[in-house]
């Protein structure tokens, strides 16, 4: 009789132990579900806000293009307006393509090596991308206009190939960007170089007028076009 009682008690305790463990798992899962649902709500809200922003921009852009269409139709018989429109469109494309010299307020960054440390092309890429992130509208490196297809290639003799031409340090990077972004850009560039100032001499200057030359050779860009 005593053995049966002990056996029954053991069985009950085992069952209760299993139940507690299931219960713990179940509550843990519920908590995880709630956390993931909350995260999911935040992610969805963010995505929704972003999509609404994109839609607003698209709507604005659509209105602008439709207004331009109306303006062009209206200007069709006004030769002066037609000429102005052609000039404006041509200029816009030429600036973006890097086919004309441009000027404006911007920054000049000069990077030189202190003890002959190499400055690889990916570091130049980082700077160029940072300039673009702060909406740089024209960029040049050692007088080479940076276009859509400009490559940075590390080559023999510690040289960097840019637009098919070879350059060594110091690198003089010039960029024209919206004046309201200049301070942020300078801060970011200084931050990028904070830990390497003992290896490189970095000079960043904000200039009221920077001239950025047009692309030196259209060869590589144009060989596929015609």
């Amino acid at each position, binding site marked *: 009789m005593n053995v049966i009682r002990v056996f029954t008690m053991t069985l009950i305790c085992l069952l209760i132990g299993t139940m507690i463990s299931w*219960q713990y798992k179940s*509550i843990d899962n*519920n908590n995880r579900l709630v956390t993931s649902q909350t995260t999911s709500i935040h992610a969805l809200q963010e995505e929704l806000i972003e999509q609404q922003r*994109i839609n607003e921009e698209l709507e604005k852009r659509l209105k602008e293009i439709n207004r331009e269409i109306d303006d062009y139709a209206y200007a069709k018989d006004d030769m002066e307006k037609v000429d102005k429109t052609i000039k404006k469109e*041509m200029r816009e494309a030429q600036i973006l393509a890097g086919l004309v010299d441009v*000027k404006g307020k911007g920054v000049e960054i000069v990077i030189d090596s202190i003890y002959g440390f190499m400055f690889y092309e990916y570091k130049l890429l980082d700077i160029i991308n940072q300039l673009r992130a702060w*909406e740089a509208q024209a960029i040049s490196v050692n007088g080479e206009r940076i276009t*859509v297809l400009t490559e940075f290639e590390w080559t023999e003799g510690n040289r960097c190939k840019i637009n098919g031409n070879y350059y060594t340090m110091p690198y003089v990077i010039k960029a024209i960007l919206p004046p309201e972004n200049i301070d942020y850009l300078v801060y970011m560039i200084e931050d990028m170089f904070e830990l390497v100032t003992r290896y490189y001499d970095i000079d960043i200057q904000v200039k009221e007028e920077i001239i950025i030359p047009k692309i030196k050779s259209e060869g590589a860009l144009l060989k596929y076009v015609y």
Partner: protein
Amino acid sequence: MRKNDRKNILLFVFMILGFVLALQFRSVMSNTSQEEISTVQTIESLKKELEREKLIGDSLREQLDESIIQRDAILRNMVEERGGEDITKEWEKARVLAGLTEMVGDGVVITLNDASEIVDGVIDPLLHEHSLYEVLNEIKKAEPVAISVNNERIISTTEIVCAGPTTRINRNRYAVPYEIKVIGDSKKIREAFLNSSIVTFEFIPNNIRFQIKDEKDIVIPKYSGRIDALINAVEVVE
């Protein structure tokens, strides 16, 4: 076993049982609570709203593309009638180089994605923005004609910026996978990409997924954003 011991054990067992029942009750209550139901409803309604906004976005994009085609046709007519052959040629050249025209041609399509699983030795399984612009630089070494990432035309001002789990390209956000379309010499682009240090030292060791395939008649869209916002700080030197 004495009678008193049995009672103590039973007391202990029933206390645990009571505790478990209380926990169970609370768990069930929280599962069926109004809060839980409203969370599910919020998720559903957000999903529906997002879907609706995406449809609106697609429709707006279509309308915008049509309007741009119409505007460009009017402009082309203007230039041809008024400017003559030389001006038309110069205008076309500038637009092609600026990325303002759609391009069609043979080339490659490269797909990049985060690592599918974390295996031993993987330091960083995520595809970061710097990897993306380094890949674009490798492609540019092979002298391509035009490049797009997730159908966003790469132009001279295109930024590749980390924006949380996404990447900002031409002020729009994109998440992985990234589909890079390139028109140009397939063989040269393939060699430049596969032999690059980014593939050898970053993608392969970190299990980052990549695929490259040759394709014919790839369509690369033109840049469709606002141009004046990209050139309002510069002035042409006459």
